[in-house]
């Protein structure tokens, strides 16, 4: 905010000095980034996905459903040892066979036909690391930003982060709390600051894992 001059002291004399001082604290007025809410939820999803006990529960194929903290408390549930062993064995098999490091290519849509990207996905302890190496996509203009999404077969979108690509040549590192094996379509949209948390629908890049 521009600083035109020092306020007229008479304007502020009706309030205690401490309050006047507190109101000049930048922290009181700084606006959170538009994507903060979404990114916080994405971070929670990633943390939950990394919570191993949640994955051994039956009927929990989609990490986006269920409770957050309670997932880490399932250990105490009364499950027979044989069932646990069977499910854990299945989990290990799944991790080894179904979710290897993977890659995919994104192609530009009509909105960014020259753009393309190579994407590498690596499962880490805190979630899936998604690295975008983007070519020929202009940096997001002021007031806008890019947002990446995973989409499942039902069309459910889960954001994996936002970026502006204002430093060329830099890989974009994003994180997913959902399994790309299920959410196998990756898109990048153009978003407007203040435009809300939902996808704008303006897809610039799109690609499918294992097409």
């Amino acid at each position: 905010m521009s600083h035109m001059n020092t306020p007229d002291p008479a304007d502020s004399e009706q309030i205690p000095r401490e309050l006047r001082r507190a109101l000049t604290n930048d922290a009181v007025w700084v606006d959170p980034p538009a994507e903060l809410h979404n990114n916080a939820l994405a971070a929670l999803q990633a943390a939950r996905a990394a919570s191993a006990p949640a994955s051994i529960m039956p009927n929990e194929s989609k990490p986006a459903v269920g409770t957050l903290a309670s997932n880490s408390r399932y250990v105490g549930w009364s499950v027979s040892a044989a069932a646990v062993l069977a499910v854990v064995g299945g989990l290990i098999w799944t991790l080894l066979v179904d979710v290897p490091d993977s890659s995919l290519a994104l192609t530009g849509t009509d909105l960014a036909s020259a753009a393309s990207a190579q994407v590498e996905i690596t499962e880490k302890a805190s979630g899936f690391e998604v690295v975008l190496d983007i070519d020929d996509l202009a940096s997001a203009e002021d007031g806008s930003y890019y947002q990446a999404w995973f989409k499942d077969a039902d069309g459910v979108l889960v954001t994996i982060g936002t970026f502006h690509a204002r430093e060329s040549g830099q890989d974009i590192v994003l994180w997913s709390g959902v399994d790309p094996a299920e959410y196998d379509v990756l898109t990048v949209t153009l978003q407007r600051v203040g435009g809300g948390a939902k996808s704008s629908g303006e897809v610039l890049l799109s690609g499918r894992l294992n097409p």
Partner: protein
Amino acid sequence: MPGDQPRPLDHTPSVSPTLLADFVRGDDQAFEHVVRLFSGVMYAAAYAVLGRRELAAEAVQQAFVAAWKASDTFDSQRELTPWLCTITRRCAIDVWRTERRHLDEQRDDYSLEGVTLTGASFEEVWEAWQVRDAVDRLPPDEREVMRLHHAGGYSHSQIAQVIGVPIGTVKSRTSRAHGRLRESLAHLWVGADEPSPRTGSGAQ
């Protein structure tokens, strides 16, 4: 006149007992509600520590994850906000340490300009949290006047020009906003100086 007194800010608790119980239980929707309710003030608290927007945002994300991990240890008889504030400050300091370590590794002649910890104590961060919360609860027209006046340094006459209203309106909004803030935040500065009696009335 009593009729000129501004209405106090809404102090209806933002976190109902049901929500708090669901939060402790680790319910998804309760967490989403908490994120929606507190991301703004947590961002203010993190910014009070770090003084940088992008680091503050990172700290808030980490704070929510930390809160989730610790939610089952939270005593639901206590207030949620100081607990979240404590976590936010701790995560902000962790983010600062990580950033400093990163710069240490990258630069030989590094300077930590712009990555300096403000050294904000818990009391200072808590003050920023509560003032931010109180300001966010102001009616939008009063909040805008407060922002221009206290953050922008605009005088009443300048604010009148900027937002296109008579100066008397600016003064009355200022007075009402100050009244609400003074009342809702009085507990923060018990024993602090009293306002000047010269300008204690409403519209000037």
